């Protein structure tokens, strides 16, 4: 399954939930927030949120800001 993760194309074995994706990519689940196809996926939904072919995934964490 091809995904666009933070603007990089990646191939990930399907099926895959958001929670599983973070695990596979070695993200610490605590300090990231996730959106799929422009829609926010709350932490509570990550286990159930199944990714689909071609999905665009944003994974962000705290950064300095002005």
């Amino acid at each position, binding site marked *: 399954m091809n995904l666009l993760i933070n603007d990089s194309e990646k191939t990930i074995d399907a099926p895959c939930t958001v929670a599983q994706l973070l695990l596979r990519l070695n993200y610490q689940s605590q300090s990231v*927030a996730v959106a799929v196809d*422009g829609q*926010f996926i*709350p932490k509570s939904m990550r286990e159930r949120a199944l990714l689909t072919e071609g999905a665009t995934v*944003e*994974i962000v*964490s*705290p*950064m300095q800001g002005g």
Partner: protein
Amino acid sequence: MLIIGNQRFDNHLLLGTAQYPSPQILKQAILASGTEIVTVSLRRQSPESQGGQSFWDLIQSLNVSVLPNTAGCRSAKEAITIAHMAREIFNTRWIKLEVIGDDYTLQPNPFELVKAAEQLINDGFEVFPYTTDDLIVAQQLVAVGCTIIMPWAAPIGTGKGPVNPYALKVLRERFPDITLIVDAGLGLPSHAAAVMEMGYDGVLLNTAVALANNPVQMASGFSKAVIAGQDAYLAGAMRPRDLAVASTPVLGTPFWHNKH
């Protein structure tokens, strides 16, 4: 007293956390400024970076309120999504709403801004909208429920100080009950004092402090200037006048003679 929703803050300076030479200097600048509110953002980061954990730990150690921004967003939709992500990570309903409309001036897009503000207020956020000094846009923001308005003084990072003081004064006159915070474009403490003298409730800064040769001392300078400006507003300043008037009493001036 800076009023944000039902909270009250003694300090009227809000400080950005970006562009400092080192985390240590960032920390010292925050302490020197006395700020109780700092801005942060969300960015894509590699897993190896530990998700900005060390920055986030630093901020959390300082016992300040965190105001996440939506910097870099170009549409209401993007900004709304980022706001929700920020609420989850930073555990706050505050959001500094930036929806940029132009790459060169980094000017807010009033159309998308109002749209996003309305949705986020419905979603339970405390919205700090970064906007221009346009009165009608501010009216629209208030109409959709904003109790805070953050007009710019000048484009982000220019350090020009208020390019249109007249417009800032009009906003203050027309919104006596809204929390008005000048955001963006200040370069010097005198700029911050000047907007506080107009009766603004606060000032949000980043570049002018972070890019000073000595950010810590500059943070301290801005901090005092904000209080100075507020003192002047509360103290009720004299009106400027065109004719000179002696400060020293004229009566009893030596060498003065009636025959003059």
